[in-house]
């Protein structure tokens, strides 16, 4: 294993740094890196190159080419740059390429060179031109800071939600700062800039001069600054070849180093690992690379070629024309296991496993040694962890094998960590592959999360790999496979050379009814690409009408939207489409559309009933719905009209409509009502009081109550109230008046068509037994018993019942015999019954 640590370089006493190759690059670069603007996205992202317009040595007549490569150097895109001169390139967190032009316009491209959008950094920038620009990443997204020709800064904390902020002026600033950077503190972006020996911090309110604690004397200028990946640390390189390293709050110095090289470095970046105590920066000159930290000595590498540094979460990537390397601090677990002569439990376990494979008894000795110290669990964990940090699959395997071997000697070692590491490494190895070219480390992968990684694979249109990973990790379909398929479909609809039918079919074949796939999203994308027909075809597969309908409306397929809404049964959706259609179509067309959709028509009628009465009338007219028109005019006669004439006129219209509807009953009733209304009006004029809108019966009753019997009878004749009913009305009214005299006269006016029992009943209801008795005698024989009982004459009732020999009547009387008084009567009845039975 001796050779394994060959690439380990100690920095001070406690840390090792190692550099290993990720890829050998065979990109066919037309330009030297030094002649290009270079931007490499973090987390193993893509690399963009554009010939730097400021380097005038070469002929400028040829338009530069913007090239995008994967981290492994595979070409992703190449396009002729036709816009203005570019000052700076940078990648957003979503892996979109931002090209900052000299005039402050920022052009945004996708990974495949597809133009997305553009935005401007404002007028001030346009006027003063862009001198320098930086893209930076914070938790809110990707920000952009611009230094203008007027030495002023303009900043946007999130280019996705562009809000420009012009930073305050630095007093007395005459020339461009020698170096500057963005800091991010307390969720706010600041700018730190160096002018000669002075440092200034700009926040959105003020510019303040700052000093570095413990800065060595003699500095007359700062040449480079670097802020760490997490914004926690800051390093400055001075013209004296001195490097100050401290916290980005500028409150504390961590360490310093004097490298005695006064030439300005080409690049300086931090190289540290999360949760590590070690701090180091990597400084690059033309042919020299130096790692410096809190140690008297530095680590030095020779650069054979022009190289470019990319800071990462846990190290630095270095790429050149021919190679792509990763430089990082050796993680603790790896150090423990592989350090020369290490006796750490993990190291022993690895040895034990190797001996075991050699079938040597030494395996047992090593194992015993670990077990005696009670460190086997720790040993297994160390091996698992170290495997995660290995780039080479053979090393990963050997460490995992050791862990697996150690596990056999442990009871109840929870298997998750081992299983998960195996899975993670399998995913990592797959994406690190040259063809994919995403060289994520284990820590970066964990920080990025699997979801984002999948998004990035989707961005690279690596759908099959993404799906394989989802399936391998058994991610829930909605977050995993479905999402990928949906993205694939969205990409598919952009393939303009394939016919609508084929695209729709291909998409449906792949997606089927996969849960969580939104066909409407895909359709929206198709519509966005101008493929309306395809969008409609895709929407056919969408089961949720709530999603279908709005898009159909947007695509101006309102009639289709209407039938979809109706299919869903969601009336709210139907209403929405209806109101849309109403605005879109002329009235005639709108009504015609409704006519073919009875359900929509009835809903719209309801709407009109409450909101637009006149429209309702038009609808009925259109349909020749005379019955409803009649009802409509009745409502109008009551609601809208005050004057009797107006009401009668409305009723006349209603009656005409009813005749057309062949509803004789309603027509006649309406005509009667018109007559009644006119008459009631006349009564009010002549007699005073309130008559209008009373029913016919109530009118008669009111007349009687008012003492206008003659008028009442006239009215009854006019409206052909049957005699029986008139008698009832009169009887009730007179009893209400307690006009017993008039009642008696009335009863004698002619033979009562309703008999006399009602007279008895109504008198009793008014508790007038005296009057009731008068009528009881006139009640016909078949109701006589009931009448006598009503007035309380049980004895006579019994006599009549006996005379009638009617069993039912006898029982009725008997049931009324109460107490002692009726005892005799009861006996009488019983006797009569007995006699009847004898016969």
């Amino acid at each position, binding site marked *: 294993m001796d050779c394994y640590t060959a690439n380990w370089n100690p920095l001070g006493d406690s840390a090792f740094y190692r550099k290993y190759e990720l890829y050998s690059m065979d990109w066919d670069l037309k330009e030297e890196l030094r002649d290009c603007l270079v931007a490499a996205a973090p987390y193993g992202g893509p690399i963009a190159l554009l010939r730097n317009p400021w380097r005038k040595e070469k002929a400028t007549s040829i338009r530069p080419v913007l090239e995008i490569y994967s981290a492994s150097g595979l070409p992703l895109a190449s396009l002729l740059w036709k816009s203005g001169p570019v000052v700076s390139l940078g990648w957003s967190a979503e892996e979109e390429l931002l090209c900052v032009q000299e005039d402050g316009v920022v052009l945004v491209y996708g990974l495949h060179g597809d133009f997305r959008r553009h935005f401007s950094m404002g007028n001030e920038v346009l006027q003063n031109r862009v001198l320098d620009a930086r893209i930076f990443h914070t938790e809110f997204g990707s920000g952009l800071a611009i230094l203008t020709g007027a030495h002023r800064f303009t900043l946007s904390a999130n280019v996705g939600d562009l809000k420009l902020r012009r930073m305050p002026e630095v007093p007395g600033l005459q020339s461009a700062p020698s170096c500057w950077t963005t800091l991010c503190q307390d969720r706010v972006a600041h700018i730190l800039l160096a002018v000669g020996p002075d440092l200034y911090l700009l926040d959105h309110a003020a510019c303040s001069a700052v000093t570095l604690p413990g800065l060595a004397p003699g500095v007359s200028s700062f040449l480079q600054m670097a802020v760490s990946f997490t914004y926690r640390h800051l390093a400055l390189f001075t013209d004296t070849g001195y490097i100050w390293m401290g916290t980005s709050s500028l409150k504390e110095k961590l360490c310093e180093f004097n490298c005695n090289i006064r030439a300005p470095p080409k690049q300086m970046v931090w190289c540290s690992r999360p949760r590590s105590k070690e701090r180091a920066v990597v400084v690059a000159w033309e042919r020299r690379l130096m790692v410096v930290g809190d140690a008297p000595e530095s680590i030095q590498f020779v650069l054979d070629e022009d190289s470019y540094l990319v800071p990462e979460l846990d190290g630095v990537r270095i790429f050149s024309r021919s190679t792509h390397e990763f430089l990082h601090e050796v993680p603790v677990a790896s150090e423990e296991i592989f350090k020369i002569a290490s006796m750490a439990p993990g190291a022993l376990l690895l040895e034990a496993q190797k001996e075991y494979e050699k079938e040597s008894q030494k395996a047992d000795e090593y194992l015993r040694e670990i077990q005696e110290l009670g460190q086997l669990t720790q040993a297994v964990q160390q091996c698992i962890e170290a495997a995660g940090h290995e780039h080479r699959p053979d090393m990963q395997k050997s460490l995992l094998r050791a862990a697996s071997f150690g596990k056999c000697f442990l009871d109840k070692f929870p298997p998750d960590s081992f299983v998960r590491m195996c899975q993670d490494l399998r995913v990592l190895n797959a994406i690190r592959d040259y063809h994919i070219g995403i060289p994520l480390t284990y820590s970066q992968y964990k920080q990025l999360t699997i979801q984002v990684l999948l998004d990035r694979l989707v961005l690279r249109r690596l759908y099959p790999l993404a799906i394989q990973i989802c399936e391998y990790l058994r991610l829930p*379909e*909605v977050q995993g496979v*479905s999402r990928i398929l949906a993205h694939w479909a969205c990409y598919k609809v952009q393939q303009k050379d394939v016919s609508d039918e084929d695209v729709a079919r291909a998409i449906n074949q792949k997606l089927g*009814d996969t*849960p*969580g796939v939104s066909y409407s999203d895909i359709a929206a994308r198709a519509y966005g690409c101008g493929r309306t027909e395809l969008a409609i075809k895709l929407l056919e597969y969408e*089961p*949720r009408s709530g999603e279908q309908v709005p898009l159909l409306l947007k695509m101006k397929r309102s009639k289709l939207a209407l039938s979809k809404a109706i*299919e*869903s*049964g*969601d*009336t*709210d*959706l139907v*209403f*929405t489409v209806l*109101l849309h259609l109403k605005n879109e179509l002329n009235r005639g067309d709108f009504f015609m559309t409704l006519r073919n959709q*009875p*359900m929509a028509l*009835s*809903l719209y*009628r*309801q709407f009109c009933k*409450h*909101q637009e009465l006149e429209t309702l009338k038009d609808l009925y007219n259109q349909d020749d719905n005379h*019955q409803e028109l009649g*009802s409509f005019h*009745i*409502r109008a*006669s*009551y*609601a809208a009209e005050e004057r009797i004439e107006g009401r009668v006129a409305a009723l006349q219209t209603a009656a005409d409509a009813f005749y057309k509807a062949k509803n004789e*009953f*309603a027509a006649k*009733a*309406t005509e*009667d*009502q018109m007559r*009644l209304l006119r008459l009631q009006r006349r009564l009010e004029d002549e007699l005073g009081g309130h008559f209008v*809108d*009373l*029913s*016919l*019966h*109530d009118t008669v009753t009111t007349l009687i109550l008012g003492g206008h019997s003659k008028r009442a009878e006239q009215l009854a004749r006019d409206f052909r109230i049957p005699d029986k*009913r008139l008698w009832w009305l009169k009887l009730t009214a007179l009893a209400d008046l307690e006009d017993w005299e008039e009642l008696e006269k009335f009863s004698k006016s002619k033979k009562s068509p309703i008999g006399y029992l009602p007279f008895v009943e109504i008198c009793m209801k008014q508790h007038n037994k005296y009057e009731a008795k008068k009528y009881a005698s006139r009640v016909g024989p078949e109701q006589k018993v009931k009448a006598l009982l009503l007035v309380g004459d049980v004895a006579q009732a019994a006599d009549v019942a006996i005379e009638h020999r009617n069993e039912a009547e006898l029982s009725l009387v008997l049931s009324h015999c109460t107490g002692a008084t009726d005892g005799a009567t009861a006996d009488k009845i019983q006797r009569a019954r007995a006699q009847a039975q004898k016969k």
Partner: protein
Amino acid sequence: MAAHLSYGRVNLNVLREAVRRELREFLDKCAGSKAIVWDEYLTGPFGLIAQYSLLKEHEVEKMFTLKGSRLPAADVKNIIFFVRPRLELMDIIAENVLSEDRRGPTRDFHILFVPRRSLLCEQRLKDLGVLGSFIHREEYSLDLIPFDGDLLSMESEGAFKECYLESDQTSLYHAAKGLMTLQALYGTIPQIFGKGECARQVANMMIRMKREFTGSQNSIFPVFDNLLLLDRNVDLLTPLATQLTYEGLIDEIYGIQNSYVKLPPEKFAPKKQGDGGKDLPTEAKKLQLNSAEELYAEIRDKNFNAVGSVLSKRAKVISAAFEERHNAKTVGEIKQFVSQLPHMQAARGSLANHTSIAELIKDVTTSEDFFDKLTVEQEFMSGVDTDKTYGYEHILTLYNLEKAGLLKPQTGGRNNYPTIRKTLRLWMDDVNEQNPTDISYVYSGYAPLSVRLAQLLSRPGWRSIEEVLRILPGPHFEERQPLPTGLQKKRQPGENRVTLIFFLGGVTFAEIAALRFLSQLEDGGTEYVIATTKLMNGSSWIESLMEKPF
């Protein structure tokens, strides 16, 4: 508090808890103190879900009724409108919000649509220029509200009118949504039966909605075996008959609203000695009626003529129990007696209440008017000509009734009623009101058609009555919802099936009583859980169809 919901075969408390959770989650979204502005119609149904205490726990400090112009002053951070999605209510809300804005400190406005968000309403708010004022606009899917251990209602007053008169399916859509919620909580219902046009539509919507949720495979073991969807217009006759069960009569006479009844207070005056009856309570006595009350659970579904004997038997038991105290000799016995006291006192209170109610009802049922009304009902059923007149203002109502199929102009067509009555045995001459043997006891002779259909479906099946089903309006159908093999039920011998029966357009208490009677039959084979768009009776139903032009 809602323990009675869990007594039944299906624990409906699960549903109640689910909707309560949803409510709490919404309230917590609006951080800080709140005032709720209520669409008045919602307060009743909400009372069955959450008491004021729950709202208070979530910082609801004030409650107002939604009405025009300004909101009453309230020192709260959030103002939440709880409303049904209706345009006229949106106009009022807009008025509230606009007049609020002119006054000092800004508050956060939110809208909770019950039971569904509406694009139409949001468009109206937008047109009125206030849509942007609302931070949260959400929906609260309170479709089916648990009323009792076996009873769910949407309490949608206008459902029947909308469905059958105005061809507006909104409430059917809500019903289908409600059924989807039920299935999410109680498992997919494997078999759906139905009769009627609306039933068909609800079933179609359910099948469609199921397709929309293909993603989330329901893995709950199904609690319901069948769903029976019944259109009210398949049986328009039953609600018109006077209900003769105890609960039915209370509803007929006093009207039960959201399980509460208001009664004339005189009979409930506290009996105090030396009280000359001077200060009789004037406010109506309000009682909650549900099966949480033991005595009520026992008598609610009995024919009223059988209630008296139960009450007197119960009176004897209770006084005997109170007499026990004289026999309590040892300290232990006394302690045991005392521990039972609260229960006994509650029982005594309950008995007193129901005795009073029974007296009130008796006064009505023994009156001439009541007798006459029953006679007329019977005459109607037997086809005797009666002479009725109406004022002209009822002409629109008459047309509505005709459209709904309740009235028919006399034409020479064939009368199918005798066939139906005979096949379905709708008239039973030998009714035993005390110990019923058939559902006809609920109307003292008439067996409700709707319940008979349910009974025949469970045994021997509808195939036996194909002919009658064809005479009744609307299609009848059967749908199956396939279940994954793991969720298929293996019924134990003797285990009853559970049928959810959904009355689209309303159900009466007498019909519910009849279904409960079927559930309790030992060899019935089926237990019923009842759902409906509205609990109703003949008068409230006809009232919902009335239209007076002034």
